[in-house]
């Protein structure tokens, strides 16, 4: 039960938690939090696999993948929250524009 | 046990003590302001002792300089942060404790 | 050179369709010119193809559309026969439609889809294998749907919906049949006398494929259980009922059955698996049912529709008898009935346009108002009833003789009975127009109908009489039919 394996299992746990949150929670902010958790879980699995390689330094490829992943997850958060705010504003009607023609 | 490692051990113990004190304060104190008070005071001291202990253990002057820099940064940011939180709490009208014997 | 003719005969209607759709609604003259020119060009091309086919070297083209899927066109004698009828009658109908549609809306759409329907009918005629025939057959269903629902009224829409249900149902059966056929005999094209290798394939499979194919084509050929759509489709404008629902569409169904029985299975294999006997029985029932229903119909177009159902099954019965003379008569009847029936539908259209007459009971006294049209109609009606020496009698006689020589006496009886019923439903059409009208008809000073309508009727009637007169001569439909029958029954030995 080496340390990387522990982190990998925690990663698996986070992925399941995140997926559960995305599916079950309805409030957009909570769903975004869940998406971020699921992302962190996936990255944990990748990096713990990198750490476990016998080479003198950890495998850099998963590191690069995770860096890309973190940036993409942040973009997801930004778009999701902006969309949620716009929808809240639209439902209040004060800045809803565009004819709601079906 | 050379004198240096003994001193470092003492500083570690002191920093641990102050951190614990801060946390107890956080849990026990009745309102926001006192809790803030406990946190910033105790934790700053805790960080100070920790930096001191690490400085003693490491001999390389560059790391010592970096440690001191970290200590200063923590001091400044925690002070500003607690000020901001206190101001926000006061604005929102958070209740503060009065001694009603 | 021949392939060029094949190309012209198919591309001309396509151009006419594209042109009619593209032209502005008000360009009526140029649209007529386009369609008429296309019709003439197609007729000429089909004529050239017929001569070439008669010469024994039919023009053809094959292409591998998808790996293992070969499609092709071939203008053999049978195809040329069907195509000749369609293209010649298209010329006449183009003129008639111009007059008939004068004050109706969206004529561009009408002429466009009309030309598209002709294109697919010619495709059916010239298909070299069952897959190509199926493709053009389905395009024909699609092209005729907008024509049936042309004026958008609720009855038109429900007739269109019913037509679609039958067409798509038939199409599905056909798809499965053609797929099954491909599984049995991959990539074969039509051969007179049938190309299916009898050995090696389980009879149930052969029967299943035969049943699916005949059912698929039977929808358009209006065999009894599948005929429901035809009377309802009469709600379409007269030119549509005339050319499509009396000639092109229904005959493509019958032509499909000819291809299945005589160019895929071959008469003896079809008989051995019990296909043709069952088909003959269904046809016989349809002949009698159609004729009987026709007698009861007071609406003129409904009566003609049921007469078509009955006459179509003359052909189906003829072709399912194991006898060359019967087959020749049947193929001849495709053309003869087509020409006669188109005259009657033109007449019905003219009656409605001029005198708003829709029912047989209202025919009294129409002869005095429209003598020329009525005379043409009478000659066609008599031919339809099989009165000698007119065109209808010639082919019916051949089919009857074929039946007796083939030893199925019951078929001759059916033909005789049908003849009597035909006389029964045709008689009022012949006599009532000459009666004195009881109610005073609103005086219309005009002597005859609109010339655009009268001329095509007259031409078609003359054509019918010419067919009767020159029945024996070569290069006429009956002669071509005879050669096809000979190829099917004897070339194969």
């Amino acid at each position, binding site marked *: 039960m080496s340390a990387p394996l522990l982190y990998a299992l925690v990663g698996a746990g986070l992925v399941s938690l995140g997926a559960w949150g995305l599916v079950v929670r309805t409030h957009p902010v909570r769903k975004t939090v869940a998406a971020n958790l699921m992302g962190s879980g996936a990255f944990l699995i990748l990096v713990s*696999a990198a750490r476990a390689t016998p080479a003198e330094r*950890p495998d850099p490829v998963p590191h690069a993948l995770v860096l890309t992943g973190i940036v993409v997850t942040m973009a997801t958060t930004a778009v999701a929250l902006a969309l949620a705010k716009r929808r809240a504003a639209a439902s209040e009607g004060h800045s809803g524009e565009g004819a709601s023609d079906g | 046990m050379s004198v240096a490692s003994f001193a470092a051990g003492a500083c570690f113990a002191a920093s641990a003590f102050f951190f614990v004190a801060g946390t107890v304060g956080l849990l026990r104190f009745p309102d926001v302001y006192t809790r803030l008070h406990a946190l910033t005071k105790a934790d700053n001291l805790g960080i100070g002792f920790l930096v001191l202990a690490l400085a003693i253990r490491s001999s390389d002057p560059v790391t010592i300089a970096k440690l001191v820099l970290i200590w200063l940064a923590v001091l400044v940011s925690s002070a500003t942060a607690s000020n901001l939180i206190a101001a926000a709490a006061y604005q929102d009208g958070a209740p503060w404790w009065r001694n009603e014997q | 050179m021949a392939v060029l003719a094949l190309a012209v005969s198919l591309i001309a209607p396509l151009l006419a369709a594209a042109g009619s759709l593209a032209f502005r609604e008000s360009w009526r003259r140029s649209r007529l010119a386009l369609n008429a020119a296309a019709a003439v060009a197609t007729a000429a091309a089909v004529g050239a193809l017929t001569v070439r086919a008669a010469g024994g070297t039919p023009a053809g083209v094959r292409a591998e559309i998808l790996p293992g899927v070969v499609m092709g066109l071939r203008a053999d004698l049978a195809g040329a026969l069907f195509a000749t009828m369609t293209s010649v009658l298209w010329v006449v109908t183009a003129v008639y439609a111009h007059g008939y549609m004068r004050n109706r809306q969206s004529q561009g759409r009408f002429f466009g889809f009309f030309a598209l329907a002709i294109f697919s009918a010619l495709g059916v005629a010239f298909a070299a294998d069952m897959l190509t025939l199926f493709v053009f057959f389905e395009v024909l269903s699609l092209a005729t749907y907008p024509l049936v629902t042309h004026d958008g009224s609720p009855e038109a829409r429900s007739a269109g919906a019913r037509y679609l249900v039958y067409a798509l149902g038939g199409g599905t059966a056909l798809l499965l049949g053609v797929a099954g056929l491909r599984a049995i005999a991959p990539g074969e094209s039509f051969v007179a006398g049938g190309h299916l290798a009898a050995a090696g394939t389980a009879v149930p499979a052969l029967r299943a494929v035969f049943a699916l194919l005949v059912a698929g084509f039977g929808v358009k050929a209006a065999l009894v259980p599948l005929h429901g759509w035809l009377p309802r489709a009469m709600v379409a404008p007269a030119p549509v009922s005339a050319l499509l629902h009396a000639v092109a569409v229904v005959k493509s169904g019958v032509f499909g059955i000819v291809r299945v029985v005589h160019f895929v299975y071959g008469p003896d294999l079809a008989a051995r698996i019990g296909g043709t006997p069952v088909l003959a029985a269904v046809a016989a029932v349809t002949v009698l049912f159609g004729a009987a229903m026709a007698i009861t119909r007071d609406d003129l177009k409904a009566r003609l529709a049921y007469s078509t159902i009955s006459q179509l099954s003359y052909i189906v019965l003829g072709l399912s008898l194991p006898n060359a003379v019967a087959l020749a008569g049947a193929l001849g009847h495709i053309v003869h009935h087509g020409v006669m029936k188109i005259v009657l539908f033109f007449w019905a259209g003219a009656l409605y346009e001029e005198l708003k007459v829709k029912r047989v009971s209202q025919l009294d006294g129409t002869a005095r108002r429209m003598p020329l049209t009525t005379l043409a109609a009478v000659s066609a009606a008599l031919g339809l009833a099989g009165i000698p020496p007119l065109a209808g009698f010639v082919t019916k006689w051949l089919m009857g003789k074929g039946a007796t020589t083939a030893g199925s006496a019951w078929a001759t009886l059916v033909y005789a009975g049908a003849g009597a019923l035909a006389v029964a439903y045709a008689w009022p059409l012949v006599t009532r127009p000459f009666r004195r009208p009881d109610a005073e008809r609103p005086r219309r000073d005009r002597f005859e109908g609109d010339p655009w309508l009268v001329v095509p009727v007259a031409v078609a009637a003359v054509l019918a009489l010419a067919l009767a007169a020159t029945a024996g001569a070569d290069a006429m439909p009956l002669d071509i039919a005879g050669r096809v029958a000979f190829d099917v029954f004897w070339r194969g030995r």
Partner: protein
Amino acid sequence: MNVAVLDVMLCAGLVWCAVSALVKRDLFASIVMFISFGLLSALAWIRLAAPDIALAEAAIGAGATGALLLDAAGVLARGDGSAAEDAERRTPRSANVLGTIAAGALFAALAWALLSTPLDAPRLAAAALTGAREVGIANPVTAVLLDFRGYDTLLEVAVLLLAVMGVMALRSGAPVSVASHAADPLVRLLVGSLAPAVLLAAAYLVWAGTSSPGGAFQSGALLGAGVIVLGLEGMLQPMRVHPGASRLLLAAGLLAFVAAALEPVAAGRALLQYAPYARKGVILAVEGILALSIATTVAGLFLASSVTPDRGKAGRP
């Protein structure tokens, strides 16, 4: 069992923060738990010897994302409080149970997969490390990020630009504009004094990226965070950003990277195949512009979408 106690504590902390972030009733509390989760995960990356990722996680994961969440919670909780609450209650019991079972099954599958395959199977480590040495970039992660898998990073920069465009589209095309309002004097002092330090640190990170942990994303995020704090405190008032300029700055990162990618094609080499002699220079230049662009994007994402009612809509410049 050579797992250090710290790791166990850290993992427990991570799981606890994650669970409470999802389960806590109050929205604000769950976001605070999520931010602490972010900080803990930064520590976890350190334990897994991934300094680059720790930097990025701290700056982007906990910092920017946390700020965005707090801002959104502020608007959403106040805006349609009722809608948020009843949206909460709407998940029917069955969906809850079903979701839990599915998540449990997912976890079981993942755990079984992880346990049944050896974690230390040989992978691309050796190839990447030798490749990095051969290419002359000491920090293998930057080598992979900008050279071996440079195409991934190119698309990733596009994702960032796309996010900004998406946010702008949602604010009906209003370009990035900087809000301004009176700020707390103490904070202005701190931010004023910290700004140059942040700028220096960002520049250092870009420069150090090729040899030690650092790089465009980390420095961009740091710089972006700095700009956000300045923006929040209204210190950016004098620099009314011209819309055209802000758009160009946002797109600059992607355009520079595309230029660097297409230049080799023009010169007859494969896409993104830098000339050997110019490799370090090109990568450094691209990283620099990228850092600027990412900083603008991070700041833009936050400022463009933060519509605090009292400030009114950021006026169209």
